[in-house]
């Protein structure tokens, strides 16, 4: 019999056999603790996983009340007494097979087995060490909440519940990952989410066959189409307030235990340009900020390519003063401008990568080396021209304005740079056609990624091109279903 088949076996009624089986299945792992004792005249064992539960809670809430039980006739009577007379913990599931028993054990439950009982009682006394609620590192804002998701799915669920106290908020827990047995929580507002969307997400989640779920990247591909898409049609957020706003708009979310991010479905391109601060400021300033982000995205993707294309192929686009300035700057550069641009961009990407991966104290040194030494030295030695460095810096800065699209910006910037360097504006235009078509082809669950721009939806422009006043926004009662395109 394989290990998997043995795990599926029902719990047997002999205490010794049970303990032996648990030890065998756990491979004699040192962190599985078995505490044997007698209560109510019946031999029992409390099994727990060290480090996953709070010893103090277990002692106070379980061991102390259980050991004082008067003699009971049988294990069934003992379990019945514990279930009906003692309130040992609020979360008290039962396990009838070893598979469930181990899942509970590894989730921080204390499991009680008894001589003559063919089931086990579990008590939620989780007390493992986890990171506290902190400010999100990637989605900063000024006027909103400063709480971010943590690695504990139940804490994340509570953060959402605290913000949406409606009974319409539903959270469905399930387990994914053959080995990791990761808790996954599907969240949605019952009265807002389109039923078809929910059914299809459930089906997508049911299709997941993974050994482990260690980040959002394990689940996201199953929620997206299989075809090649540059942009992801499943969003990610680390802010509970942002997630709540998406749930209210009729989206569904997936929380993963061990991951401080939530996946939202469906995701639209325009969402990447929204921040929660847009709703904190006056609409005119929010509109300004939003268009600034749209512009920054265009600059981030196209500026180095357009600069290279103009200097290499279309100098007539520049006025004479600018042309002389650039000619003067570029005449001493030893490399062709395309190679120069590529080197500068790749250098930036390397510095960025180093900044992310290096320990924080060394990160500061990287900034100094890259900014002062490499940048300054490259310009002074004439290896890189100042205008090119300025354009690259502007493009990089533009990319930082829309962090949500950083991977796409990085790759597209390089792609457009090569196209512009080789074929000029013509090459940029051709690549733009392909990219535009790819973006427009992105559609999951019937929600076009480019909505409300194309297909155009007047209802959606109130919170994309502009930002209406809060009263008008609330009056329109918008949900994401307005963008749904039926497969006719």
């Amino acid at each position, binding site marked *: 019999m394989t290990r998997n088949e043995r795990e599926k076996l029902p719990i047997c009624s002999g205490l010794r056999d049970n303990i032996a089986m648990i030890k065998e299945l756990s491979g004699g792992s040192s962190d599985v603790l078995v505490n044997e004792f007698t209560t109510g005249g019946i031999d029992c064992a409390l099994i727990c996983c060290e480090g996953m539960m709070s010893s103090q809670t277990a002692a106070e809430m379980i061991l102390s009340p259980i050991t004082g039980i008067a003699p009971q006739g049988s294990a069934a009577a003992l379990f019945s007494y514990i279930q009906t007379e003692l309130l040992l913990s609020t979360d008290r599931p039962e396990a009838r097979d070893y598979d469930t028993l181990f899942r509970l054990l590894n989730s921080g439950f204390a499991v009680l087995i008894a001589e003559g009982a063919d089931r086990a009682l579990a008590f939620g006394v989780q007390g493992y060490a986890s990171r506290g609620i902190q400010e999100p590192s990637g989605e900063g804002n000024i006027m909103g909440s400063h709480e971010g998701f943590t690695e504990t799915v139940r804490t994340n669920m509570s953060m959402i519940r605290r913000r949406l106290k409606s009974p319409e908020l539903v959270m469905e827990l399930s387990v994914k990952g053959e080995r990791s047995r990761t808790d996954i929580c599907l969240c949605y507002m019952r009265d807002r989410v389109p039923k078809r969307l929910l059914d299809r997400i459930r089906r997508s989640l049911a299709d997941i066959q993974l050994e482990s779920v260690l980040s959002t990247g394990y689940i996201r591909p199953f929620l997206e189409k299989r075809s090649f898409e540059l942009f992801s049609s499943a969003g990610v957020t680390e802010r509970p307030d942002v997630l709540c706003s998406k749930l209210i708009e009729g989206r569904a979310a997936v929380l993963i235990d061990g991951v401080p991010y939530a996946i939202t479905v469906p995701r639209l391109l325009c969402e990447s340009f929204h921040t929660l601060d847009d709703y904190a400021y006056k609409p005119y300033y929010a509109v300004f900020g939003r268009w600034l982000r749209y512009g920054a995205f265009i600059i981030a993707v196209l500026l180095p390519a357009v600069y290279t294309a103009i200097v290499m192929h279309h100098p007539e686009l520049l006025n004479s003063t600018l042309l002389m300035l650039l000619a003067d700057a570029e005449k001493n550069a030893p490399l062709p401008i395309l190679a120069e641009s590529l080197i500068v961009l790749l250098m930036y990407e390397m510095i960025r990568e180093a900044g992310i991966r290096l320990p924080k104290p060394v990160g500061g040194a990287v900034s100094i080396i890259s900014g002062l030494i490499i940048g300054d030295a490259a310009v002074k030695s004439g290896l890189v021209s100042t205008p090119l460095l300025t354009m690259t810096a502007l493009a990089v800065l533009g990319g930082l304005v829309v962090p949500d699209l950083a991977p796409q910006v990085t790759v597209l910037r390089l792609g457009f740079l090569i196209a512009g360097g080789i074929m000029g504006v013509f090459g940029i*235009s051709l690549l733009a056609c392909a990219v535009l078509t790819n973006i427009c082809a992105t559609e999951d669950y019937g929600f076009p990624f480019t909505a409300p721009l194309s297909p155009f939806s007047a209802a959606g422009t109130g919170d994309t091109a502009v930002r209406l006043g809060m009263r008008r926004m609330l009056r329109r009662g918008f949900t994401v279903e307005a963008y749904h395109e039926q497969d006719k």
Partner: protein
Amino acid sequence: MNRISKSQLAALMLIGDVFALCCLHGRICLMTAIGFAAGSLIQLFLALPLARLCDRGKTPADCGRAVRVLLLVCVLAWGGALFAMLREASSVIYIPYERSGLFGRLAVAGLVALVCVYVSSSGIKALARSAVIAAGLGALCVATVVVSAAIQSDADNVLRPAGSSLWRELMRGFAASGGLGSFTVLLGFIADDRTDTAALYFTCKAVLSFVILFTAAVVTGGIMDVLEFPVVSAAQLSQPFPVQRTDSLFLVVFSVFAVYTVAVQASAAEYLAALTIPRLKRFRCTLALVIMAALGAVMPAPSEWTELSAAAVLAALLIVPAEAMLKGGVRRRERA
């Protein structure tokens, strides 16, 4: 089945019409603008029976094999003409490496075809959605050109005699409307009312043709005799800024429109090929583009075969209603 909206179809077709106008060869004058606009309205009139038929559920997919083959030939021929127009117009538009011999020309045509393969293989929905955005960009450019042309234009050019007749300009208008073969095909994909769709498209086409040709006429009227492509030249002459040129920005619109125009023909050809030659299951789109590019390499631009091109446009618009009428007549006779 994938459905598109009437505004998406209008955007898809208008992009092709503007591209054809950009590549328009020969003299243009006020009469040209009137002829093209009037031609568009006549086309609307001719397209109404087709639209009504589609509204009643009869699309080109329900037509006989001969009709589908004829439409396929029209679509492929117009695709070839588009490549020919691109080849000819590139003599006045700077495309890197295009003038560096046969390799350069092949590379440019190949690149356009490659992008078209990707664009048309993404499906009609993606093509239509992206065409709306591309059309928006085009509209912005046309508006810029028109505004700057208003400053550069010479009012005397409006009345400058060009020795043209309304009939000749009507024919030129029809000849430049080769995309109507794909319009006939794509009308079956419309989710909205087809008659409304036809009205929207042809009205927009009439207005757009008139505005572009009138603008080109008033800007280039004085030097028309030395120009090969008056619309392109008008865009080059209408500089919005006094100290710098914006010709290359016009190149953006030109190349984007070229890609979408060819991609629409490829999509229509792929659809017709699927209906007509069911055994051909793969690479239909690529094959269509290869045929178009090959035709483009050997055939002259449509300006040299105006009458034939106009006749093909008429055939593409009327063939489906004509077949329906014939079949209806036969059925009535059989019942009688």
